[in-house]
């Protein structure tokens, strides 16, 4: 009997069906393994274990990614890691059950539980990633506002002390207005946990901020007055 499916890619529902097929009683004359197992039992057990391990590996990767991210607040980190760890613990408990199973019927029952659990929690990594992204985006929005405020202060002084740079200061003023708008939009996207919008706005704002700093440096250099 050949099963041609990939544990990592196949949708859960199809996987369920496939494993159900694998759970049929061993045909008469099948090889009997020590402990009462059979070839079908062992194959099914291994496939379930592989399914669990793949999910645990994805969870671990997400946990590591969040754990190593220095921009996520400690509270968000705790929330997301606890969530991911609880799923991982449940899967490891199922793993123990699978290893302890002695009959194909037991495996079938455990397999159904696992598949249902995975279906219910299939988006846990996405959800926690969104929480982490939103958390950083809130900080990024505040930082963008801070940069805009600094730029406004500097521009105000330079309009007086360096009127020759009025044109450049006008451009920098426009950029500052845009930065403030981006900061507000970023905050809204973070609140809505709209990760796609957050990523797009964060990237655009990053480019804008770099440009502003470069322009500010040029203006500041042009306004140098020799020290008496």
């Amino acid at each position: 009997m050949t099963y041609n499916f990939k544990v990592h890619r196949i949708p859960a529902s199809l996987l369920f069906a496939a494993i159900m097929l694998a759970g049929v009683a061993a045909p008469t004359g099948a090889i009997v393994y020590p402990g009462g197992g059979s070839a079908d039992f062992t194959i099914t057990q291994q496939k379930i274990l592989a399914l669990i391990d793949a999910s645990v590996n994805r969870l671990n990767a997400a946990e590591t990614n969040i754990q190593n991210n220095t921009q996520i607040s400690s509270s968000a980190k705790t929330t997301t890691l606890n969530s991911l760890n609880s799923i991982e613990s449940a899967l490891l408990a199922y793993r123990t059950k699978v290893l302890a199973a002695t009959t194909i019927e037991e495996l079938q029952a455990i397999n159904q539980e696992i598949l249902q659990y995975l279906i219910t929690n299939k988006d846990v990594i996405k959800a926690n990633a969104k929480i982490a992204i939103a958390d950083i985006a809130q900080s990024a929005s505040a930082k963008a506002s801070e940069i805009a405020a600094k730029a406004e202060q500097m521009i105000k002084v330079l309009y007086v002390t360096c009127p020759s740079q009025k044109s450049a200061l006008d451009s920098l003023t426009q950029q500052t207005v845009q930065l403030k708008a981006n900061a507000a939009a970023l905050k809204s996207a973070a609140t809505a946990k709209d990760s796609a919008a957050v990523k797009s706005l964060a990237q655009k704002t990053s480019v804008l901020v770099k440009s502003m700093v470069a322009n500010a440096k040029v203006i500041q250099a042009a306004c140098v007055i020799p020290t008496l």
Partner: protein
Amino acid sequence: MNKISLFIIIGVVFLGVGGGVLYFQSDTLKGPPEPTGGTFPDTESSSGNRPSSGGTGESTTGGQGSGSATEPTTGSTGGSPTTTKPPPPSGTTGANPPPSGTTGSTGSQTTTQKQVQEMDAAATQYGSMNSSVQGLDDSTSL
């Protein structure tokens, strides 16, 4: 009245007039008395917020007020000796007075330079945040 008396009278008048002239001239030559070096008004001394440019007071310390009650001895060109010393020439009161010996414009320049540096540092921090956001994957299913 004899000649001698007349001579004496003329002499006395001459001496009186001459003495008066000399007295007047000596006052003129001396010019107005120097300021008494009176104390600053309370608002001046308490604020300690002296003009950043030093104005035209030409104080020996380069125009930097220390906030003390001591007046520059050569700073004033006017003012009646019988009145209190007028406040020092007004100048801009920049938020951040420049260090001693520098001009006001250099002070604002230093401030601007600091602001640019702060912007740069904040931009770097923002860049790290952006990288972190971009590095998080929200598309992986369990």
